């Protein structure tokens, strides 16, 4: 049976892309292998050793705590931070986009707080508030600002003729808000969520390192480093990368789905 590549066939294209991804990752692993041999240092374990460490972490956990428990601890914290940011940033952003005077009042405060790197808050929140809520608040900060600015932007970007159209159809201020501004901001909200999730995931891993009695993957990887368990450390890096890819692709999928539903593509 002969195979002919057809660039107009969806499955052929997907197959081609998958092949490229496999080749790209293979090249990456080979390069890593070469570097680990050349460096001849325990700090850079070979892919094989890392793979063994990954399997043993997933099977036996670390320090008597299962892998699932570390991962779910991080994900729970992440989800809590996200939810808090979502319930605060979305309504606030919609209101700030809608009301000019309120926006003028709040903007200076936001502009002072926004440039502070979320990680700068980590010691403040974790040592100052608590080991439990601290990392969650760092994630919250990481997601809150990108989300808020996207929501405000979304409300401001609204097509003025949609507002005119709604007004000539008899819209009150309340209707303008619920029937026009909020729905037209949704794609921007989704974009904010996507950006926010990316930043938030970086925050959680770093924030957990400050926590001396935590459970998350960030805590786990820093403890492995301190103990010189390099293959395990690298195995954790892989887990963190995988979880990061998972959250961003989920957000991307959601964004595409919602944009399509909202009639903007």
């Amino acid at each position, binding site marked *: 049976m002969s195979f002919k590549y057809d660039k107009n066939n969806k499955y052929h294209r997907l197959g081609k892309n998958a092949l490229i991804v496999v080749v790209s990752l293979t090249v990456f692993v080979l390069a890593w292998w070469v570097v680990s041999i050349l460096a001849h240092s325990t700090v850079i374990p070979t892919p094989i050793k890392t793979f063994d460490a990954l399997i043993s972490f997933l099977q036996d956990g670390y320090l008597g705590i299962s892998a699932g428990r570390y991962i779910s601890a991080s994900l729970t914290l992440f989800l809590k931070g996200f939810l808090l940011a979502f319930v605060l940033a979305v309504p606030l952003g919609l209101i700030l986009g809608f009301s000019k005077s309120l926006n003028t009042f709040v903007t200076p405060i936001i502009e002072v707080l926004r440039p502070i790197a979320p990680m700068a808050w980590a010691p403040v929140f974790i040592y100052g508030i608590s080991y439990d809520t601290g990392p969650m608040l760092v994630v919250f900060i990481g997601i809150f600002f990108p989300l808020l600015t996207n929501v405000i932007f979304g409300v401001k970007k609204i097509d003025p*003729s949609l507002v*005119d*159209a709604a007004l*000539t*159809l*008899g819209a009150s201020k309340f209707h303008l808000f619920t*029937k026009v501004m909020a729905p*037209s901001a949704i794609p921007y909200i989704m974009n904010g969520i996507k950006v926010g999730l990316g930043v938030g995931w970086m925050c959680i891993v770093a924030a957990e390192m400050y926590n001396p009695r935590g459970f998350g993957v960030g805590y786990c990887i820093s403890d492995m480093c301190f103990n010189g368990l390099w293959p395990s450390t690298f195995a954790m890096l892989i887990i963190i990368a995988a979880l990061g890819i998972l959250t961003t692709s989920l957000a991307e999928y959601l964004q595409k789905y919602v944009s399509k539903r909202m009639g903007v593509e």
Partner: protein
Amino acid sequence: MFDGSNKEQTSDKGSVSYAEGEDFIHIENLSKIYKRDDSETVAIEDFSINIKKGELISIVGPSGCGKTTILRMIAGLLEPTSGTITVAGHPCDKPGPDRGMVFQDFALMPWRSVIKNVELGMEMAGVPKEERRKRAEEYISIVGLEKFKDARINELSGGMKQRVGIARALVNHPDVLLMDEPFGALDAQTRNLMQAGLIKILDKTDQTIIFITHSVDEAVYLSDRIVVLTKRPAKIKEIIEIPWPRPRDRASPDFTALRKHILDELEKENVLDD
């Protein structure tokens, strides 16, 4: 396109009812001056006209002369600097569904289906769901989009989008339909089809329409009267009555002569028509 039957429309509000041909819209000494810092731009100066019920009035004028400004003031989207506008006896100080507007860029909500767009005005007015649906379906069939009532807006062609825009305005039984270069974004062929469709609506109802266009051809084809404006500040240069029945023959000598006359007048205003 635009088929289906449509009963005589009645205004939802207003205690006085107007018969076709009666003076219905009064615009008196309308002016609009835009003030910015210390400079003033006079957009409209001393614009007065009475429009009869069931009339189609088009307003033509050099580009940027303020045609849209007049329409937006009637819609209540813009406040006049001086002068008064009444439609069916009501002053036009704020926008409302009694003055339906059709926009050049369609201005449809892309997150709503065709029928949901048509229902929007009734939804905000608190019309019960059943009745909303029924009325929306009726007007969707008038503009010939029955098959597309559940379609998304981005699945429609430009002409179809504008038919949704027209249905969305008409479904609220407006006293006047304000059309702001409604076919300006469409290709020539679709444009002609839309004009023919609009004429069908005119035949079946006594809908009063104010129509802004920069196409003289379109104005002569559709209008009962054409208001020719001067360049900025816009004043009425001439009002031309066209008593011919519709549909009109674009190739007839009368048609081309009138078209030429208006184009000449506009050219005197120093601006070229399309």
